[in-house]
């Protein structure tokens, strides 16, 4: 699996730091990136004395007004990356620029402490000071920046109204509900109108309903205020709904960068496909090119995969599909099929000669509201299927089919 080519590009942007602004959704191509991290590395000393690499030469830029999500399982280094950006952690190597200003440069031994970085940050635990009222909490960054008392009060009221907490100025934060505390934390991170706002799993402590609400509000507030931000989360729904771009981290390195749609539709690796959305894996023993498609000998038998067109985004990190398939003959490949791309039709046998069609049996069904999730057995292989058809019962014989363009071929690892 040749991660090398595209990855090197993703990790080493040209010196002008242009990668981030190229696919900036708001089109402000001329401006420099709001956040520009270059080849950041951070190692930690274990108690036993050995070192582990938490972040390994990560480069990432965020365009003005862009909100980028960093996702990955726990321990992938995403929180460390955010803390390095905030100045709460000092990287071992690399450079960090915020709004064009170098806040960290290992070569020049430059390190700007967090209080000088002029950023906002929303903590997972809210981190509201219990001895201050809501207004004092929210007004704190302004007071630190030398804003007068009267002006602070006005701006605090305005931002509290924006987050829907008008009138709660004098409450102690502990008297508020979890969702309200979250909003106070959000207001505090935004009140000084920082150009860069960092989010450390901000929605992980509230229940699902409140989370939905806050997510929507966050999108609206982001649209209104237009800050740039980095959003760390392990929740793929957060990442996809709130952010303009996704960065998938694995073991301290960037596995893929792209818009949520790109990453979902064209995951560069099995790891990304499995982390972003559900996916079925089908073992592949041999692969051969035939025109514009790839013929696979798989656990399902003959499997045809259409070569997927490169995505239209200029970000090179997503343009990798062919790279994966060309490493064919070694049997180290796997075919990936999203559950919603599998078609089910009642019937005993597929029509003669139809590609990617197999007879199968419904083994299990799960009601998921507007969708049904089925587990379908084809020989020894089990496929998970999302279908709008609610009528299939366990034991029903079905014909299973997948369009060749929905079969993704990736390295098995």
């Amino acid at each position, binding site marked *: 699996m040749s991660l090398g080519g595209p990855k090197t590009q993703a990790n080493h942007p040209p010196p002008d730091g242009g990668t981030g602004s190229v696919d900036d959704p708001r089109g402000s191509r001329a401006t*420099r990136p*709001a956040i520009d991290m270059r080849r950041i590395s951070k190692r*930690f000393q*274990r*108690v036993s004395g050995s*070192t*582990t*690499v*938490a972040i390994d030469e990560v480069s990432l830029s965020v365009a*003005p*007004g862009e909100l980028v999500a960093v996702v990955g399982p*726990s*321990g992938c*280094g995403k*929180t*460390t990356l955010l803390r390095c950006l*905030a100045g*709460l*952690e000092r990287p071992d190597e690399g450079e960090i620029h915020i*709004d*064009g*200003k170098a806040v960290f440069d290992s070569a020049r031994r430059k390190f700007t*402490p*967090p*209080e*000088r*970085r*002029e950023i*906002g*940050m929303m*903590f*997972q*635990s*809210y*981190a*509201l*000071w*219990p*001895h201050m009222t809501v207004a004092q909490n929210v007004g*704190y*960054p302004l007071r*630190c*920046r*030398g*804003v007068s008392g009267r002006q602070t009060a006005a701006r605090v009221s305005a931002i509290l109204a924006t987050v829907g907490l008008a009138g709660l100025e004098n409450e*102690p*934060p*502990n*008297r508020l509900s979890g969702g309200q*505390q979250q909003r106070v934390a959000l207001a*505090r*991170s935004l009140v*000084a*109108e920082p*150009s860069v706002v*960092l989010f450390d799993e901000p929605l992980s402590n509230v229940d699902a309903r409140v989370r939905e609400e806050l997510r929507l509000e966050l999108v609206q507030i982001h649209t*209104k*205020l*237009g*800050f740039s931000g980095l959003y760390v989360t392990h929740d793929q729904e957060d990442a996809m709904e709130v952010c303009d771009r996704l960065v998938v981290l694995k073991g301290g390195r960037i596995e893929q960068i792209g818009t949520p749609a790109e990453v979902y539709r064209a995951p560069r690796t099995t790891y990304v496909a499995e982390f972003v959305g559900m996916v079925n894996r089908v073992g592949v023993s041999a692969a051969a090119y035939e025109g514009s498609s790839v013929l696979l000998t798989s656990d399902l038998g003959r499997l045809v995969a259409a070569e997927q067109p490169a995505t239209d985004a200029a970000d090179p990190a997503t343009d990798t599909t062919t790279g994966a398939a060309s490493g064919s003959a070694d049997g180290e490949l796997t075919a990936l099929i999203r559950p919603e791309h599998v078609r089910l039709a009642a019937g005993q046998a597929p029509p003669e000669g139809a590609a990617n069609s197999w007879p199968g049996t419904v083994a299990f069904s799960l009601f998921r509201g507007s969708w049904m999730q089925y587990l379908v057995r084809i020989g020894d292989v089990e496929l998970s299927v999302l279908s709008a058809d609610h009528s299939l019962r366990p034991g029903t014989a079905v014909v299973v089919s997948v369009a060749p363009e929905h079969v993704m071929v990736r390295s098995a690892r």
Partner: protein
Amino acid sequence: MTATTTTPGAGADQDRSGTRRTRTALARATWSGRIFAVCCAALTLVLLALLVFPLGSMLVRELDTAAIRDVLGDDAFYEAARNTAILVVVPGVFAVAIGSFFAWVNERTDAKMGAVSTMLPLAPLVLPQIALSVGWIFLADSHSGVLNVFLRSVLRHVGIHLASGPFDVDSWYGMIFLYTIVLVPLVHIMVSAALRNLDPSLEEAARVSGAPVWRTLRTVSLPAIRPAIGASCFLVLLMGVAQYSVPRTIGVSARIDVLSTYLVRLFQSFPPKTGSAVFVGVLVLVVMAAAWLLERRLTRRQSHSTIGGRGQTPSLVRLGPLRWVVRVVMLGYLAVASLLPLVALLIVAFLPYWTAHPDFSAMTLANFRTYFADDGFRRALTDSAELGAVGATAGVLIAAVLVSFARLRGGRAVRGIDMVARAPGAISHIVLAVAFLIALGGAPFYWANTLRILILVYVVMNLPQAWVAADTAVDQIGQPLTEASAISGASSLRTMVRIHLPLMAGGLAAAWAMLFVVIVGDLNASSILAGPDTPVVGSVILSIFDNGTYSQLAALGSIIAVASGVIVSLVMLLTRRLQAAASQPRRSRARRNRPRSAQESR
């Protein structure tokens, strides 16, 4: 790029001025942060100098081979050392067991009793140790002790006739009993703090996994708070060796000599055997340093086990009918550690003289009147109160500022400050007082016989206690609360003033009260440093103990105990009210920063 350009709707002019203001404010923040750092570094160096200079000059000026030979050839030294070892180990083991048990009961079981639980570790600390010892002489003197007289009259009814006893405080048992009483609160406070910091869900997880109460305690709670227990063992050793009030009062008549009394005797003999005293002090110092290193080694590996600070209320262990037994035990402790001796003191204080069968019709205020009529005593009382207030305030402030700075700064600076602040804890208080007298008493300072030298010694001597209290208090503040302040643009100075100090207030007030009482009731430094021009309560007590009547002693003990109690209660009440007004009991929603090396680097 500026902080405001991305905000639509803000006027351009306002933007520019706002940006400039932000710039200057942030620049000012950096400068104030730097000045703060320099001040803290300077303060640490001053503290270091206050240790190195006196101890150094003491060693250089006084230590010689003849003095060492004297000590090593003295049988009394070996006896004092042996007695000290017994009186540290036996009461120490009791104190750690009882203190930890009380802490667990009050933090984790339904036997806790509201205000009584809060008072349990504090009440014995409020009663000056000298008052405690004297109070117990009145209670359990084998002939005239109030308790003994009462018990003998009860026993006479069942046909048992005793001429003396059944208790005798002037004995090994009496000493061990009083040492234990004095040491229990230290353990209780430290272990309680650790349990409060320990995430209760760790224990709940064990319970849910099927572990009964005892097993949970043994396999989860105790291992998790091992650092606190280790630290309290060290503190017990330290305070046990430094203990002076009990051996000076009870040890004298029980003929049990310990190192602290031996040391003072060397120093106060004529001519003073200062060199020998210094050598004994150095030996104690070496033992303490070894114990300190051992304690650090044993607890460092455990340094990450107490995560928490989420402020959840733990689900309480139900003790059933046993909880009344436990409560009676706790009330019993409260009685023997503060209530009974205080009552005994008060009774004797109002009597013209102390006998086995007092004549209550002759009760009088004469004992008090002599004190308040005496200028010297009034002077001692005001001096001590002043020393206590200034010393406690200085000690707590220094500890709070340095602890906060160390936390904000992190890294190597922390370890340095931590070492300096805790170091006086390893030095016997009497040795420290001697060192200050040698270094600053004569040329070129001539500070002997001044309040200045007393206040310096008191602050240095009690800094470790203040440090531990401040450190515990800052531990309760979740790391994100501090980080959020930095992100908001606050300098380290501002974070300390606006975030750390208000959230530490409760712990600091308790530390202030403790320091105040310890300084007012101090005998160690007072016995060495208080001169004719600087009488303090401690020196007056000692001279009355040696030359006055018991009733006078009782009156003095009562005055100190009541005064300390009133002041401490006022301080605690005030802070509780302030805290209630400022924040909810739930300290912070913030989880403490996860141990980075263990989690993030996986």
